[in-house]
């Protein structure tokens, strides 16, 4: 039965469910809970050319139905990821999506070139939307021209398809999406976090050391859904959606909005089994909706009756 299999540029997924970058490390911790081979893919933690210590603490704060984080791209650096983390992940039957980040275009190019050559890296996710670093990150993700150029440069060196991760902190998400498409992106992932803040009641100072942080979790789902709905109608690029997904029905919502796959971030912290549970629940939901294949539901929020769905494996 392949009701869940999805084929996207570079990615032959047994199901369209994967943990979102930064919310699953490099998989080691969650491998204690279930067999990671059950997943469609893993979007690994952002990798930068050199090791990064990340931001001071506190790095997280809770908000109504959401959380703020400012981890600051802490990661062991390109070399360690290639030599240790990726080989460790080879034991699982999975294509890996490598999330790459940096402070300047050169950083992205360097990481893209090297990491895309790794055996199990099937696609890159260009993180041009991290709100938690002083330089780079979100700066690339809020100006269409910059995003287009960066995408084109990374495409030149990458041996695997390139997905660009969009920031929701923009006036026009479709403009950003189109710029990435023009730059040669093979797909989009969306959304990264919304910039937010929490203050300590007593002192009135920001709870997070970085002052602002990225808002994730169910609170942002309506915004993410709307953006996927808009972008999927305006570009032909496949979308891997994320933003508040914590149940199989949330996944159906994003597929209906026009996504072809879905990533789960914050919900892993609430329930470490959430990805596994979603994958197990999807078939019965497809039964309930009378759908043979999950992608038969793709775009049904905006598609006129009878139109065909796409990207089915």
């Amino acid at each position, binding site marked *: 039965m392949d009701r869940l299999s999805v084929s996207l540029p570079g990615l032959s997924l047994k199901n369209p469910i994967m943990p979102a970058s930064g919310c699953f490390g490099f998989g080691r911790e969650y491998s204690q809970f279930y067999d990671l081979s059950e997943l469609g893919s893993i979007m690994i933690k952002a990798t930068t050319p050199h090791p990064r*210590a990340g931001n001071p603490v506190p790095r*997280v704060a*809770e908000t109504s139905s959401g959380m703020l984080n400012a981890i600051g791209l802490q990661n062991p650096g390109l070399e360690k990821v290639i030599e240790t983390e990726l080989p460790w992940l080879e034991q699982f039957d999975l294509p890996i999506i490598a999330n790459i980040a940096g402070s300047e275009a050169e950083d992205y190019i360097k990481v893209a070139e090297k990491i895309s050559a790794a055996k199990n890296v099937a696609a890159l996710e260009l993180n041009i939307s991290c709100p938690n670093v002083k330089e780079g990150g979100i700066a690339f993700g809020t100006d269409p021209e910059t995003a287009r150029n960066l995408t084109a440069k990374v495409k030149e060196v990458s041996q695997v398809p390139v997905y660009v991760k969009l920031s929701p902190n923009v006036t026009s998400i479709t403009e950003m999406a189109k710029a990435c498409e023009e730059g040669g992106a093979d797909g989009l992932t969306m959304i990264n976090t919304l910039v937010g803040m929490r203050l300590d009641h007593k002192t009135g100072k920001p709870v997070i050391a970085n002052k602002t942080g990225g808002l994730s979790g169910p609170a942002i789902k309506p915004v993410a859904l709307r953006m996927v709905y808009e972008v999927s109608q305006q570009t032909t690029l496949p979308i891997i959606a994320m933003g508040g997904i914590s149940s199989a029905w949330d996944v159906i919502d994003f597929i209906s909005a026009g996504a072809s796959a879905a990533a789960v971030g914050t919900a892993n912290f609430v329930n470490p089994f959430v990805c596994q549970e979603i994958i197990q629940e999807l078939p019965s939901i497809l039964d309930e909706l009378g759908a043979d294949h999950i992608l038969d539901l793709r775009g049904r929020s905006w598609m006129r009756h009878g139109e065909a769905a796409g990207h089915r494996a």
Partner: protein
Amino acid sequence: MIREQMKVLGNKKLAHQIYEMTLSGELVSLIRTPGQFVHIRTSSGNDPLLRRPISISSYNQEENTMTVIYRASGLGTKQMAESPYDTIDVLGPLGSGYQVNEDVKGKSMLLIGGGIGVPPLYELSKQLVEKGASVTHVLGFESARVVFYEKEFSELGQTLIATADGSHGCKGFVTNVIEQQGLIHADAFYACGPVPMLAAVEEQLAHIPGFVSMEQRMGCGVGACLACVCEVKDPDVPYKKVCTDGPVFRKGELIYG
């Protein structure tokens, strides 16, 4: 490390805002050391969203029961205190706790707790006593109304209380008591409490071995999100994770910000 809907056997008020919850379930059989913690989901909805890290204050692996002691101060812990449900969603046991080996026998151990850092010391003390150590407890609280477990600790060894306002025991901090009572000559110390207390205790007891339990705001609780890091002195390791490398660290390992 499992996720379990544990049975709530009791949820009783010990002092102002301080509650003791008794839980039973399979999870207990996986506990390895005192000082480990659990990650508790207090709501079935999305508000609050995140789990709450709470230390295991005692456990009984024959009966598969454990207790946690918590302060109902914010949204999540208040929900725990008011919960009328008879099960609760618990992830754990998490982290690495205090090692208690046979070699503690005959040694005099100093256990230092501050506020809601006191609970994990209770199981630790029980195990130290069981293995033949003699224990002294120095427990610091804000004021008399939030003091708990004085009797329980007293049954295991000498127990000295300090309160910031002097409303119970000595007025002042745990370090004042340690000083005044000449407790700096213990064979080792174990501390759990707020960071300023840990820093002061490490300085005061720099001459003996010791272990401290750290707190940090957490996301996942399992080592994946990198929320809970703390700075360590080893220059080759920029950060350690409280949730997996800790919460218990060796004295001298941490840089207190």
